[in-house]
């Protein structure tokens, strides 16, 4: 009996061995390679990179494999590695206006400069299980090449040099949407991984928090704003997916050095207009940006970003999505899963102290109830 709480060390070792065995599954089935995960479970890797806050496909694929496909666990693995990496500084801001576009759609305009580019999307698929995918013959695995009105170039260089103006910039030229706050290139960049979050948080910190926040949590919050809990009248002004250059200002050489290209998804939401005695009405903005192809996350993020701007815009704050402390304190799935799952840890000393009190209270009540009977008997 007391032995039950002893021998933890051997139990842990055995649990880890069993886990490794379960992760591998039936040894008769070929083992997954990181390339297979990276190529064929690409969106899993994208989510792990985005919420793990580390742009490294190979490590993301490794984490997905090690986590047996549990993406929150994979995100946790990546975060725990990322936090040990040295920090050289902040990159130059990326220019999503100069993005090599793979997908770009606007729900606000029928057509616009650069056109609507559907790209690789589930959007207009019929969600019918494709039993053909279950068989792995070479012919079934090679999907037909897309054909198009224009010749589609699927090479990585596709679209290079054809920058598409952002919808918000088009509206901004007419003054119809609030301008983006001008950036101060010399201002220090807040970093919530290096300084604890304090409230009230600035928008840049909020966006950092949302960018690594849990997709499911942001999805539900964004959804709640659409159902009236902090309504913002959103239009998907633009969603774009593609590659952008990342540059780092090297002080020694005096100019920005290109570090490479990353895939990002950007969503610019156009929201409820406002005006004042001094300013004519303008639409307002909600912004979402993620590593990789994470469209649902980018859209949800832009809805929540806009909802969280309620205070700055002088709006009433009553809905959960407008509550900065509530949203930012609970968005991180690594924190959330840790604390929820810590309930699995032993709590018996605390439970024992509760037992002592509840037994004492029950005994007192029983004694009080017994007392009048004794009097009656006497």
């Amino acid at each position, binding site marked *: 009996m007391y032995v039950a709480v002893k021998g933890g060390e051997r139990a842990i070792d055995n649990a880890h061995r069993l886990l490794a065995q379960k992760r591998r599954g039936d040894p008769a089935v070929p083992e997954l390679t990181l390339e297979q995960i990276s190529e064929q479970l690409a969106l899993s890797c994208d989510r792990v990179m985005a919420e793990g806050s580390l742009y490294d496909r190979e490590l993301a694929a*490794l984490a997905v494999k090690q986590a047996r496909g549990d993406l929150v666990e994979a995100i946790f693995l990546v975060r725990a590695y990322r936090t040990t990496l040295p920090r050289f500084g902040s990159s130059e801001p990326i220019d999503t206006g100069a993005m090599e576009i793979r997908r770009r759609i606007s729900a606000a305009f029928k057509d616009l400069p650069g056109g609507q580019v559907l790209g690789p999307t589930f959007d207009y698929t019929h969600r019918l299980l494709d039993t053909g995918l279950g068989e792995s013959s070479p012919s079934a695995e090679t999907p037909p090449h897309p054909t198009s009105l224009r010749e589609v170039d699927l090479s990585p260089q596709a679209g290079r040099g054809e920058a598409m103006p952002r919808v918000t910039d088009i509206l901004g030229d007419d003054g119809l949407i609030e301008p983006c706050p001008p950036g101060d290139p010399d201002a220090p960049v807040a970093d919530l991984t290096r300084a604890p979050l304090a409230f009230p948080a600035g928008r840049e910190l909020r966006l950092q928090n949302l960018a690594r926040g849990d997709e499911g949590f942001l999805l539900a919050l964004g959804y709640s704003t659409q159902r009236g809990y902090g309504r913002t009248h959103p239009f998907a002004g633009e969603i774009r997916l593609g590659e952008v250059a990342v540059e780092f200002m090297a002080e020694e050489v005096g100019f920005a050095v290109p570090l490479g290209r990353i895939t990002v998804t950007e969503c610019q939401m156009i929201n409820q207009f406002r005006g004042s005695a001094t300013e004519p009405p303008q639409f307002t903005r909600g912004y979402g940006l993620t590593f990789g192809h994470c469209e649902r996350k980018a859209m949800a993020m832009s809805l929540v970003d806009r909802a969280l701007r309620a205070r700055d815009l002088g709006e009433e704050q009553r809905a959960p999505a407008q509550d900065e402390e509530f949203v930012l304190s609970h968005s991180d799935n690594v924190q959330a899963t840790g604390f929820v799952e810590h309930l699995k840890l032993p709590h*018996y000393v605390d439970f024992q102290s509760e037992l*002592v009190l509840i037994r004492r209270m029950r005994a007192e009540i029983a004694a009080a109830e017994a007392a009048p009977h004794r009097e009656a008997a006497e």
Partner: protein
Amino acid sequence: MNAPAYNFAYLDEQTKRMIRRAILKAIAIPGYQVPFASREMPMPYGWGTGGVQVTASILGPDDVLKVIDQGSDDTTNAVSIRKFFAKTAGVRTTTHTPEASVIQTRHRMPETPLTEDQIIVFQVPIPEPLRFLEPRETETRRMHALADYGLMHVKLYEDIARHGHIATTYAYPVKVDGRYVMDPSPTPKFDNPKMDDCAALQLFGAGREKRIYAIPPYTKVVSLDFEDHPFEASRTPKSCALCGADDTYLDEVVTDDKGGRLFVCSDSDYCEQRRGTETSA
């Protein structure tokens, strides 16, 4: 792929310096929760990441580390954290309280009185004693700044009015050095008196909530109470079935499905010392 290489005790030196600065501030303002830039650790939030970061920052190669959970060195999470430091820092570990220079704990204070040469590190899930009365950090920070603790006293009073007792049995709030109301972490209130005038430095780390606080050695720690309802360090009124101690905190072990119960010391090292048995963890 680059194979990750890790520093002594896992954390990089910059991070350790940042945490040490927070610890020094915490010692300078006893009971005050110092925000710090908590890192992701290779174990989940809520499983001792705050305590692990504090331990990693104060550990030197000559330290001897003891890790307990629920008072015992053998519980799974204690084993896991002890192995983590044995692996990443290569420090000597022990299960004997008097031998340890650093003790990381979850939910208990050892029964053996601590000495001036020791530091005890508590793992803290929710550092804010006012959190369940006021969910907003902006509000609770203001309440601490103004030493506005009326709400806490009202809560304790309402407990007495409703139950005849203060219904808080663990994480029982204390006032440190006559100023800050502090959460002693979810230790049973039986352990609160051990924190008062303790010879060892007591450090508290909350990783997920990004807070560090401290009780310097020989600091006054008072459990909140009322004149007519004085604080009482409660325990199961039994003796340990193994060592016979009648003054220690006891775990209740269910021995069968017919109401059979056995009570044993929660502090497994203390119990073993009393029985004169040697064990290896």
